[in-house]
Structures are given as structure tokens and as C-alpha cells.
């Protein structure tokens, strides 16, 4: 038990050290701008199809599942607003972040882990290239910026899915549907939900990079790094979400 707690504190210490190194390196030139753009492309653009499919299904299913309950109260006209609120405040950020934890965090963990065990990271270091700046800083920055954009994209596609869901049992024009969506939304629904996605993105990138960068030698550790990155990132997303909801509730 003592050893377990010792390991937990040890891990917390090394993760904190890793994160503080990120904040130190991110502001120190030279900047790896080209690699950052490449990572934005890989993390953001290449995740679009997955996020689009997930977002569409979320919107459609949420509408279809909510309709019977609202119909009981004769409140079917609330459906667009309710779907949009649920998607924007909670479902799209969390589900998109979880999808990205699975795709991106594990990908980064496996990529950096395999670079570590095949001495590619050491090769950069002996060539006087800062591997932390090139590999870690660029990826964390890219996830921090791309996850919010992917979530906004998922919001849009989800609302579109909701429109199709509403039209399966009713008849509403797109313009009317969209105006009903915006009627029910306020500034305070969008801003806190968007702010928390930056934290989701930061932790998805940081956990993936940390697990990969600290992989031990041996191919087995690459699998472990990828697996552990997904599990830890997913758990962290729920914890951040819980804290974000509490804070939003407290201040707004």
C-alpha cells in the first residue's frame, strides 16, 4: 500500500515536471512552426471524418430518444433547443474528447513510445535538436487548439443530425429549426463549454506525449504507452468535465 502511494506521488511529480517543462519550452525560441502546422493537420483535419460521423449520430440519436418523453408533455417544439443545449453544453465536448483520446492520445503515445525505444529521440538529442520542443510542444499545442475546433464542428454536425431526427417524425424547415436552436442558446451555454475543451485538448496531448516520451526500452512498452494514454486521458476528461460543470454552476 505504501509503495502504491509512493508510486502515485512519484507519477504526479514527474507529470508536473513534464508539464512545467512544456510551459518553459513553449515560450522559448526557436519555434517549430512547420511541425506545429503539420500536427494541426494530422490531429485536426484527419480527425474530421470520425468527429463528423460521431457528431451526426449523437445529434440524431439524442433527438430520437428525447422525442417520446417530450411528446408526453406536448413539448415537441422544445426538441431543437433541448438537443442543441445538450450537445453544446455536454455531449459534444465530452464524446468528441473521448473519441480524440482514443485516436490522438493513443497515437501520440505509440508514436513517441516507438521513437523512444528505437533511439530516434536520442538521435535528435545527439544532433543537438531539442526533441521535447520538436515532438512534445508541437503536439500539445496542436491538440489544445484543434480539440476545441473539432468540438465546434461536432456541435454543428450534431445539430444537423438533430434536424434530420426531428424531420423523421415531423416537418420543420432548416431555417425554422436553426432559429429555434439559437433562441434557446445563450452566451453562457457556449463559452464555458468551449473553455473546457481547451483543457481537454491540453490533457489529451500532454498525457499522450508523457506516456510516449517516458516509455521504457522494449517494444512491449510501446503498447503499454498507447493503452495507458487512452485510459488516463479518458479518465482525466471526466474529471475535468466534473470540475468544469461545478465551476460553471458556481460562477454563472
Amino acid at each position, binding site marked *: 500500500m505504501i509503495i502504491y502511494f509512493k508510486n502515485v506521488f512519484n507519477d504526479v511529480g514527474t507529470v508536473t515536471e513534464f508539464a512545467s517543462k512544456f510551459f518553459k519550452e513553449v515560450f522559448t525560441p526557436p519555434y517549430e512552426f512547420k511541425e506545429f502546422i503539420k500536427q494541426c493537420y494530422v490531429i485536426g483535419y484527419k480527425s474530421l471524418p470520425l468527429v463528423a460521423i460521431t457528431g451526426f449520430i449523437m445529434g440524431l440519436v439524442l433527438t430520437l430518444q428525447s422525442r417520446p418523453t417530450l411528446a408526453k408533455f406536448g413539448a415537441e417544439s422544445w426538441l431543437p433547443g433541448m438537443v442543441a443545449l445538450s450537445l453544446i453544453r455536454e455531449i459534444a465536448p465530452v464524446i468528441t474528447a473521448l473519441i480524440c483520446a482514443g485516436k490522438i492520445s493513443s497515437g501520440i503515445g505509440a*508514436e513517441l513510445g*516507438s*521513437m523512444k525505444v*528505437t*533511439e*530516434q529521440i*536520442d*538521435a535528435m*538529442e*545527439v*544532433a*543537438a*535538436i*531539442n526533441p521535447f520542443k520538436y515532438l512534445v510542444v508541437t503536439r500539445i499545442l496542436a491538440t489544445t487548439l484543434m480539440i476545441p475546433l473539432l468540438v465546434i464542428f461536432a456541435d454543428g454536425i450534431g445539430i444537423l443530425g438533430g434536424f434530420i431526427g426531428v424531420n423523421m417524425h415531423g416537418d420543420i424547415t432548416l431555417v425554422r429549426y436553426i432559429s429555434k436552436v439559437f433562441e434557446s442558446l445563450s452566451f453562457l451555454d457556449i463559452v464555458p463549454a468551449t473553455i473546457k475543451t481547451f483543457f481537454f485538448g491540453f490533457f489529451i496531448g500532454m498525457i499522450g506525449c508523457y506516456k510516449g516520451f517516458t516509455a521504457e526500452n522494449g517494444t512491449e512498452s510501446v503498447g503499454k504507452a498507447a493503452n495507458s494514454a487512452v485510459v488516463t486521458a479518458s479518465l482525466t476528461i471526466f474529471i475535468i468535465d466534473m470540475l468544469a460543470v461545478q465551476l460553471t454552476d458556481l460562477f454563472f
Partner: protein
Amino acid sequence: MQELINLEIPVAQHLQAPIIEIKGLFKAFGKNNPILKGVNLSVHKGEDVVVLGKSGSGKSITIKCIVGLVQADKGEIKVFGQEILDMNTGQLNEIRVRIGFLFQNSALYDSMTVRQNLAFTLQRHAKDLNDEEVEKEIIEVLESVGLAEAIHKMPSELSGGMRKRIALARTLILKPEIILYDEPTTGLDTITSREISELILNIKKKNNTTSIIITHDMACAKLTADRIVILKDGVIHAEGSYTELENSKDEWVRSFFI
């Protein structure tokens, strides 16, 4: 018993300060696992020193300490007359660009083509070069290792021998004064091993580099070594030319040459 044999290093080299000087190097992994227990080694400019020893004797750790990949626990490492153990990363990087390191598994960047592998390293240290000059340097260095045709290939498309040559090209592109080879012929067939050994020899002749070569391949050692040192139990156990050590009185030393 340590066997130190008079070396046939030219007088001029003896008078010069060693380009690499290691004194009393200690390194342990964990409390009860000391690997290096006081290694002393001097390498002079233009000299090729081969390091032999059983697996796990600390050969790779020694050269990794020289480039700061492994932090030594105790001792001194002077490279180009500068103590590297006290250096910060910036100072160490200034030394690192003057040292090439060939990894045992080549360590090519998997996600980049051969051209990108070389350009990635070069462009970070020769920022004044334009694209044409970078391309020229890349082709030149690839030709020097006999693989100019592989410029657009991915590392996964290369054989073991080709990967070693490309890794060597990546090392050479920064025109290092010292090259550290970590088992350059491991995992290669006899013919390719000989080609790599000859390449090491040619690089030395052409660029007048200083080298430390870690190997288990005695053909490579015979071809490349100006001097051989043998590590045993964390210290230099024997030192001399190939012929001298081959005829050593120490049976354990002779066992490497059978």
C-alpha cells in the same frame, strides 16, 4: 590484471592534448548495479579506438556519457578540452554538433524519407544554406556512402546495411570531428559488415575524423582500429594494438581474437 601495452601512436599525437579524455568514470543503474567503475580513456586527434568487451560491460554507456545521453555519476569527461559533465544543455549542444553518433539500430526517423532525415539535421544547424545548397550537401553525402539513389526512399524500404549507411550519412552531414560508432556492423552479413568497416576507414582517411568504435566484430576491429581497449568489470582491462592484444599473455584477452 590490467595489461597496458606501449602504444604505437605517433610522437606528435602524444604531444597533443587528447581530443577525448575520460578519467575515473563511474555509472551505476540502481544501488547495486554499478556498470562503470572508474573508466580511464584518452583518444587523440585522428585516432580510431575500438572498444571491446562482453555484452553489458558498459561500452555503449561509456560513449553515451560522452555525448550526454547518459549522465555519469562521477568522473571527468573532457571533449575538445572542455569538461562536459558540468555543461548546461546549450553548451553541450555546441559540443554535440561536432560529434557524430551512429546508433546500433541506425535510429533513422521513420516518418521521414532519407532526404528529410538528412535535411532535418542539416537545416537546423546550417541556417544560412538555401534549398539548393542543402540539396547539394545531401546528394554529396549520400554519394559518399554510395546510396544517392535511395534519396526518396522511406527507412522501412531500406535493408539493414542501407539503413546503417544512411544513418552514417546523417551523421556525416554535420561534418563531425569525432564519430562514435555503437556496434556499426551488428546484425549485418559478413560482406555488408566489411563494406561498413571499409566505409568507416574511408571516412577517417577523407575527413581525418577521430572515432570510438564499439564492436563485437573482430574483422571490423582489425580493419579500423589504431588501438583497441577492452572493458572488463567496469574498467579498462587491456589496451594495445590488434596484434599486441591478439598475442597477449592474458587468456581472457586472447579469447576475443579466436
